C-alpha cells in the first residue's frame, strides 16, 4: 500500500516541481521557506513506515477504504456499449474523494507542530473534508470560500460550521474559488509560523501537486486491483472529471505506465466552449501562471484571469493542475468537455438507472463515459471515477427544475 512504490518510467515532477514546462514554484518570497519545510517533511514521511501505517489505518477505519468498484449493469445496458464500472468515492466519509487528501495532510500538519489549519473551498467538499479532520485532531480551522459559492452551497457551509470551522466569506474579485485561494494565500503569508495550508487539489506551488496526487493515488491503486479481480484485465479507458484535477490524477496515476489504458479528463463546458461561459482550461485555455504554478489557464490578452462558469461549483475554476497540462501536452491523456445540460442528463441517468445520486462534478464524467461507452464494444471496459455524491447539489437541481425546497 506504500504510496511511494510506483514502479514506472514516468518520473515527474523534477525536484523543483516541474512537469515539463508546467508546475514549479511561483509564490511570494515569504512562502518559500514554509514550502521548503513542507517538501522536506513530505519526503521524509513518504518513506516513514510508521507514518504510512497511520495513514493506511485512517484510510481504512475513518474514511472507509477501500471504496467499491461497482459494475453498473443497468447503466451499461442503457448506453449499449462498453461495460461501465464506477469507482465509488462517493461512499467515503464526507461523501467525496477529497478526504483521502485531507487525512494525509493533517498528519503532516501534526508532525510539523502546526496548530492552525486553513483551506480554500469551492463546492465546499474540500472545506468539509478539511474541517472534518481538523475537528478530529482538535486543531483550529479556517476555511476561505467565495461569497458566490457560499450562497450556492449553503448546506456545506453549515456542515463546516457544525464541525467547528470558521468559514470566511471572500468578497474580492469574482467571489469564487480562485478568490478563496488568493485569500488563503494571504492568510498563509500572514500566519506562516503557526499555520498549515491544506490545498484541496493537485494545483498550487510544489510540492502540493505531487503530494496531493500521491495521497489521491489510492483511488487508482485500488481500482487496478479491483478490475483485475473482476475482469482479469486492465480497463480500456478511465474517465474522470477535471476541475483542479485531483480525483482524475488519483485514478490515472497508477495507470500512466499502462499505455493501452486510455485516459479521459472531462472539463466543464458550461453553456458551451464557444460562449465563454465555461471552465475548460485544458480544452480552451492558454499557458499562464496563477496560484503558484504554471499550467493552462483561462485568461485574456492582458494576462488577466477570466471568470468561469459551471453548474458545478467544484469545477468552476480557471486553472488546472500542472500534471494534467503535462499529460495533455505529452498526449498520454485526452481532455474533453461536456456542457451543463449534458452533465445534468448524466446526473438523471445514473439516478434513475442505478439509484445513485452523483455529484454534479462527477456527472460530467458520467456524461462523457456514456458517449464513450456507446462507441466501444460490449467486451470493452470503462471505469468512471464517481468522485462524490450528489446530496449537496439537490438544491441546485431543484432550482433548475423550478422547484423550491
Amino acid at each position: 500500500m506504500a504510496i511511494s512504490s510506483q514502479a514506472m518510467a514516468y518520473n515527474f515532477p523534477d525536484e523543483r516541481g516541474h512537469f515539463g514546462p508546467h508546475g514549479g514554484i511561483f509564490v511570494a518570497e515569504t512562502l518559500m521557506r514554509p514550502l521548503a519545510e513542507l517538501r522536506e517533511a513530505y519526503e521524509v514521511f513518504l518513506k516513514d513506515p510508521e507514518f504510512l501505517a497511520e495513514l493506511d489505518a485512517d484510510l481504512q477505519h475513518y474514511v472507509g477504504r477501500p471504496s467499491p468498484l461497482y459494475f453498473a449493469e443497468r447503466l451499461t445496458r442503457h448506453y449499449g456499449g462498453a461495460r461501465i464500472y464506477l469507482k465509488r468515492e462517493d461512499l467515503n466519509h464526507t461523501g467525496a474523494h477529497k478526504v483521502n487528501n485531507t487525512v494525509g495532510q493533517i498528519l503532516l500538519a501534526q508532525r510539523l507542530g502546526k496548530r492552525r489549519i486553513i483551506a480554500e473551498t469551492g463546492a465546499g467538499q474540500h472545506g468539509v473534508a478539511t474541517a472534518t479532520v481538523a475537528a478530529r485532531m482538535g486543531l483550529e480551522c479556517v476555511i476561505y470560500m467565495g461569497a458566490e459559492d457560499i450562497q450556492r452551497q449553503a448546506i456545506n457551509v453549515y456542515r463546516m460550521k457544525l464541525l467547528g470551522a470558521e468559514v470566511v466569506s471572500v468578497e474580492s474579485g469574482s467571489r469564487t474559488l480562485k478568490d478563496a485561494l488568493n485569500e488563503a494565500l494571504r492568510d498563509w503569508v500572514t500566519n506562516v509560523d503557526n499555520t498549515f495550508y491544506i490545498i484541496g487539489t493537485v494545483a498550487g506551488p510544489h510540492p502540493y501537486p505531487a503530494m496531493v496526487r500521491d495521497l489521491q493515488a489510492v483511488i487508482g491503486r485500488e481500482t487496478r486491483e479491483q478490475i483485475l479481480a473482476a475482469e482479469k484485465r486492465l480497463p480500456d479507458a478511465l474517465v474522470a472529471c477535471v476541475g483542479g484535477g485531483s480525483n482524475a490524477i488519483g485514478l490515472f496515476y497508477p495507470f500512466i505506465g499502462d499505455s493501452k489504458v486510455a485516459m479521459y479528463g472531462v472539463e466543464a463546458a458550461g453553456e458551451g466552449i464557444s460562449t465563454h461561459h465555461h471552465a475548460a482550461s485544458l480544452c480552451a485555455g492558454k499557458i499562464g501562471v496563477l496560484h503558484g504554478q504554471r499550467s493552462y489557464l483561462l485568461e485574456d490578452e492582458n494576462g488577466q484571469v477570466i471568470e468561469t462558469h459551471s453548474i458545478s461549483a467544484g469545477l468552476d475554476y480557471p486553472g488546472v493542475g500542472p500534471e494534467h497540462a503535462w499529460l495533455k501536452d505529452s498526449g498520454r491523456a485526452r481532455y474533453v468537455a461536456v456542457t451543463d445540460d449534458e452533465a445534468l442528463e448524466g446526473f438523471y441517468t445514473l439516478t434513475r438507472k442505478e439509484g445513485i445520486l452523483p455529484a454534479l462534478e462527477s456527472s460530467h464524467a458520467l456524461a462523457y463515459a456514456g458517449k464513450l461507452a456507446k462507441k466501444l464494444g460490449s467486451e470493452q471496459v470503462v471505469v468512471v471515477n464517481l468522485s462524490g455524491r450528489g446530496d449537496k447539489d439537490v438544491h441546485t437541481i431543484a432550482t433548475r427544475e423550478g422547484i423550491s425546497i
Partner: protein
Amino acid sequence: MSRLGLMFERLRNEQRAALISYITAGDPRPAATVELMRIMVEAGADALELGVPFSDPMADGPVIQRASERALVHGVGIGDVLKMVAEFRKQQTDVPVILMGYLNPVEVMGYRIFAQRAADAGVDGVITVDMPPEEATELRAALNAHGVDSIYLLAPTTVPERVRMICDRASGFVYYVSLRGVTGAGHIDLSEVEGHVREIKQQCKLPVGVGFGIDSPQVAAEMARFADAIIVGSAVVRRIEQAEGDLQQIRGSLTEFISSLREAVEKKPQVVAATP
C-alpha cells in the same frame, strides 16, 4: 550607470535613504496616472513604483487590491502601463521607475518583447512578486540584455543562504518585506526589521529597500535610519481611494503626504547607540 545606480550614488553622498512611492497604474483612472507620477516627484519622491493591475493580486492587502480593481474597470493592461511610463519619460528623464506586479501579464506578453518594450518606455527595474529568482533565469536574462534591473524580494522568513543567492542574482537593489503579511498590513516590528536589514547588508552589496506596512512619516523616519530606500505603497493608495475620484483632492493629499515622508527621510540620523 543606470538611473537606479545614479540615484543611490547621489543619496549615499547626501547620506539619506531614497523615498520610493507606489501607485497602481490606472487608479483612479488611466488618464490621471502620468500626472500623479509627476506630482509625487515634485513632492519629493526619489523614485516611483508603478503597480501593474492584476485580477488576482495574492500578495496585496485590501487597499491595493481595490486599486487594482479600479484600474481593471478601465481595462488597464501591461501594454497601457508601459505607454504611461513612456509618456512620463517625455518630461522626466532622471527619476527611476520600477514596475511592480505579478508574473502572468509578463508571461503572456512574452519575456523578450516585454523586456524590449520596458526598456524602450524607460522602465528601470521590474519586480514580479510571485516569481522567485529560481524560476526567473530567462526573464532575468531578457531584462539584463536591455539594461533593466531585476529586483527581488527578501522576507523575514528568508534564510541566510537564500539571502546570498538572491543578492547574487538581483540588480538595482533588493526589497526587504518588513513583515509577515500582505501589502499595507499594520503590524510592523521596527527592531526586528532593523536586525534583519543589518544582517542582510552584511551579505549583500546591493542597496536594501524596505517596504510593506510603512504608513506614516514617523515609521518612515525610523526605517530611513538603517535602510537605503523606503517604499510606501498602501498609505499612498489609500489617499487616492479616499478622494473618491476627485483629482483636485488627490493632488493636494499626495503632495502633502509625500512631502512629509520626504522630510522624514531627510532627518539626519539621530545618534543612536550602535546595537551590539
